[in-house]
């Protein structure tokens, strides 16, 4: 343990003009949150590996014309980070709008209405309408599991469930099939959930689903959801990833 602490150098940088100290190797998002600077994020889940797919947590770094996903970009000495420019707001809005238009997200008939992270982001970012045509996909609802349900029509492919199933529960029942716009979250060999042999029915996937795609049957969604993992899980994970 002591070695680990010695190995992590402390560095200084600024986020939105505020000077902060951070551990070298930490991500921008982690440092920002530690310093109570809010960067919206969607596919990010503390305690499992970062995915970098939703592009909601984008930030600018002075000196670069590019934008960076803060959940996967490590901090560096003297970095000047901007988390809330007009450009970033524009991009985040597009990301959320595109997700809302990708599948039929009809909040009023969704189990997650009121506790949905995508809905909350849309509200925060002022997504009051969609500029692009909506897709009305018609994936079959999977109600075969005795405790859980899966509605692919609400899935935003954030892969939180896949990562937690693999990295925390350690079974890797869930993965993606196909690719691009046809990607779909599957259990085992694209089996119905109730028949997926490797599933331990632990429920972690439904607990971290940011939307109403995976949920516990017969229980208010707001009660079965967790945005963060238990601290003993997250602290162990972060130690592991330091080296």
């Amino acid at each position, binding site marked *: 343990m002591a070695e680990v602490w010695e190995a992590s150098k402390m560095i200084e940088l600024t986020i939105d003009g505020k000077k902060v100290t951070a551990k070298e190797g930490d991500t921008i998002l982690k440092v920002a949150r530690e310093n109570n600077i809010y960067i919206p994020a969607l596919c990010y889940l503390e305690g499992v590996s970062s995915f970098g797919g939703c592009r909601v947590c984008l930030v600018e770094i002075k000196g670069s014309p590019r934008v960076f996903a803060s959940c996967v970009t490590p901090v560096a000495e003297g970095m000047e980070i901007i988390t809330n420019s007009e450009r970033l707001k524009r991009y985040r809005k597009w990301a959320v709008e595109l997700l809302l238009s990708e599948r039929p997200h009809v909040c009023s008939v969704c189990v997650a209405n009121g506790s949905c992270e995508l809905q909350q982001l849309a509200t925060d970012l002022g997504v009051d309408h969609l500029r692009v045509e909506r897709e009305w996909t018609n994936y079959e609802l999977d109600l075969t599991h005795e405790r859980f349900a899966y509605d692919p029509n609400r899935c935003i492919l954030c892969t939180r469930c896949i990562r937690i199933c693999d990295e925390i529960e350690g079974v890797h029942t869930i*993965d993606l099939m196909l690719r691009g716009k046809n990607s779909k979250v599957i259990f085992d060999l694209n089996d119905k959930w109730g028949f997926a042999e*490797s599933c331990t029915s632990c429920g972690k996937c439904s607990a971290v689903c940011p939307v109403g795609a995976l949920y516990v049957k017969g229980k208010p969604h707001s009660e079965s959801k967790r945005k963060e993992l238990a601290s003993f899980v997250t602290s162990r994970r972060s130690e592991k990833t330091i080296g």
Partner: protein
Amino acid sequence: MPDAGAQQAGLKADRRLMLLEAAIRKYQYRKDALLEVLHTAQELYGYLDRDLLIHISKLLRLPPSHVYGVATFYNLFKLKKPGTHVVTVCMGTACYVKGAEDLVLAVEREFNVKRGGTTADGKLSLFVTRCIGACAMAPNAIVDGETIGKATPEVVLKKIRAIMEAEKD
């Protein structure tokens, strides 16, 4: 000796299975050899059905969902049995510019098959591919392995008709 899991997975203990398992041994059951193993399996069996995928996932000790995810990510792997005859139309840039779409439409219309699909009687599959690299001879169509360069709908249809006729005899 075929792996005991094979029978469990419903695979016949034949020569194909022997060759597949030999290939897996050659790769020392390494997880990173999954793509190579899938290539071999498809060469041997023509397509990757469920039993085959289960068997591979067991031998390589990979989660089934991982194997399925990989097999469906790459276009080349087929999870459904293709038709007896296969027509592939190149839809690379050069071919598209020179009218490959017309070739596809012609085959679709005449044989009542959609691109990527197989006729109801399982006789003919129509695939489109992204560039076979014979751009100078665009547009190209491949009928049962034979490339037709500077193809026209008439030539391609004639070729397919001939093959289907020969089949009947």
